[in-house]
């Protein structure tokens, strides 16, 4: 094959592939963007979030869609890499013209695609934890359902105090919020006569954390806060068991999710406390999520993914328009205020069509946003690992 033939062939192939795609882009269902890690370090979590989003979309489509249109999720893989994510985001906004991008996980990916989003007036909904994200000049386009570091650290520390733990060790995978989290927890714990006896920030993706564990155990803690993701959490839990540690262990539900639980023996995990943001005790949003996914204990990310789609669809129905700016402006009119409390998109869409006001309370909390796009307050759900199952301790 001659070089020119090859080159023109490659270009022709690219255009040929794009043409039917563009033709389909006209009319048809309402397209929403999903940009989430399906490969790379975040790939454990992306597919679960995607499934949760798709489940809501299916439910709403079955109930007649939004503004009389069916909804389709356009999914791109962010590869847990900011460079690939930016290209994918450019495709979602430039080719598909989606009004919202949901599902970014790594903070670096969210920060990288954020400018693409606000430049193109596209909403961005994320679980990323870095405090800096909502500080960006995003003109209101970023909505973060993950509670801020301050909110999490404060509430989690208060819970740890309530268990009677006095000497807390803090083990965190290297993230933008690892150190801030520790500082805030230290302040809350010390006010309550407890303290952080050792804080260690470790590297991700190691096959063993024995020495890190040794250094933590040398301080004789009665509670260890594991601010981890699932691959490193698995290793840490095993190494803690091997070292004979029997005190309390506390971690995020997204790290200790149902899949992590399945991959570990019960003797290693029993007694671990997993936490996730939650709506009020009397809300049935979480129960609906359990039913929709057919999962006994959906984790924090599945809950947040559910809420992104629900908020987006309600905002579209409310504003009767489908642009990113309209969604941005309408979110707070359906997520907070004096409207009727609803726990699912289908329920809310029905009321909105009847001309009523709604206040969406989601599976990951009340979803009331401040002007920066952070959630104002939420409750937390604490569960106890028992076998591969979870027992609800309390929601406070």
């Amino acid at each position, binding site marked *: 094959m001659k070089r020119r033939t090859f080159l023109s062939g490659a270009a022709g192939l690219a255009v040929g592939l794009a043409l039917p795609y563009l033709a389909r882009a006209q009319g048809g269902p309402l397209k929403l963007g999903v940009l989430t890690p399906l490969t790379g370090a975040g790939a454990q979590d992306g597919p679960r979030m995607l499934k949760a989003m798709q489940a809501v979309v299916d439910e709403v489509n079955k109930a007649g869609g939004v503004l009389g249109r069916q909804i389709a999720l356009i999914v791109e893989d962010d590869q847990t890499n900011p460079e690939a994510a930016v290209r994918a985001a450019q495709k979602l906004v430039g080719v598909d013209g989606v009004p919202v991008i949901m599902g970014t996980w790594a903070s670096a990916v969210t920060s990288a695609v954020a400018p693409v989003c606000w430049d193109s007036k596209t909403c961005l909904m994320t679980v990323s934890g870095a405090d800096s994200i909502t500080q960006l000049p995003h003109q209101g386009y970023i909505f973060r359902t993950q509670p801020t570091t301050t909110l999490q650290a404060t509430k989690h520390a208060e819970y740890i105090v309530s268990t009677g733990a006095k000497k807390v060790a803090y083990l965190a995978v290297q993230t933008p919020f690892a150190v801030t989290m520790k500082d805030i927890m230290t302040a809350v714990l010390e006010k309550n006569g407890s303290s952080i006896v050792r804080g260690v920030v470790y590297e991700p993706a190691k096959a063993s954390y024995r*020495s*890190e564990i040794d250094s933590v155990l040398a301080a004789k803690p009665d509670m260890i806060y594991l601010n981890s993701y699932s*691959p490193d959490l698995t*290793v840490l839990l095993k190494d803690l068991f091997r070292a004979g540690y029997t005190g309390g262990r506390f971690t995020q539900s997204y790290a200790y999710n149902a899949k992590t639980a399945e*991959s*570990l023996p019960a003797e290693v995990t029993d007694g671990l406390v997993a936490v996730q943001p939650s709506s009020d005790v009397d809300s049935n949003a979480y129960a609906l999520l359990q039913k929709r996914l057919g999962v006994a204990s959906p984790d924090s990310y599945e809950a947040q993914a559910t809420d992104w789609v629900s908020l987006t669809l309600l905002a579209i129905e409310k504003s009767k328009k489908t642009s990113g700016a309209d969604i941005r402006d309408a979110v707070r009119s359906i997520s907070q205020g004096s409207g009727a409390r609803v726990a699912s998109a289908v329920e809310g869409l029905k009321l909105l069509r009847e001309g009523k006001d709604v206040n969406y309370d989601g599976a990951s909390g009340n979803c009331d946003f401040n002007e920066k796009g952070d959630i104002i307050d939420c409750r937390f759900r604490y569960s106890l690992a028992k076998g591969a199952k979870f027992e609800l301790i309390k929601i406070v």
Partner: protein
Amino acid sequence: MDVLQLIANGMMAGGVLAVPAIGLAAMYSVLRFPNFAIASHATAGAFAGWIANASLGLPVLPSLIVALLAGGAIGLLTDEFVLRPFRRAGFITTAIGSLALTIGLENVVRLVFGNEMRGYDLPLARDVVLAGIHIGPQQLQNVMVSVVVMALVFGFLSFTRMGKAMRAVADNPPLADIKGIDARMVARIVSFMGMGLAGLGGMLIGLDSSIDPLTGFRVMLPIFAAAVVGGLGSIPGAVAGALVVGVAEELSLLALPPSYKSTVAFLAIILILAVRPRGIFGREAY
């Protein structure tokens, strides 16, 4: 922090790296290119072992053999059909080809098994305390497995006909050719052996942690660091290098925060190579 405990921890971490590092060294000694596909083959072996252990209910030891055979078989096939043609284009093209191969295979695993983490069906043992140092019985086993593997590979290369043929090819391919040694057969055997050890190593790593499509990729750099520190292509060097890298990473905790751990492997390479440009045992071709 207790220095002896850190050294013990480093030996246990290094012991797991040693097995795939031996595989890498064996392949390098004959094929003369850094085979980055070791990452995906380690993952593939780990998943094969997982099928044997968690799905078919085999005990761990036979499952390890399944991991070895699967890694070896895939290694043989991919070398024969994918990498071999690249070798005449130079080692760097082959190395890049092996990087592309590793990404492809990682995603074949992802396509079939998904991204979820999986754990082996293996009850965990608590550490035992010996002279004030706590050691994991399973980790001790891993170290012993790598010593046995090293002895076997070493014995195979030193005393068997095929092993000698391999060393001949490694030393001087044209001469080996004249002597009637079938270089292609040697390449096949070393690919099977090297990637088999990668698969075995992948499962050993998985026994300590858990497995997912990135299992092999996560340990790729330390494995390469081990092989380089020991001297590329040297079997005892691979074991020594793995232990040096493992221990150096742990000892670094005395001076550096844990989030700097991985840089230590790189510093170890630079330091060792500054003193001995061919690594600890780099002179030997086997």
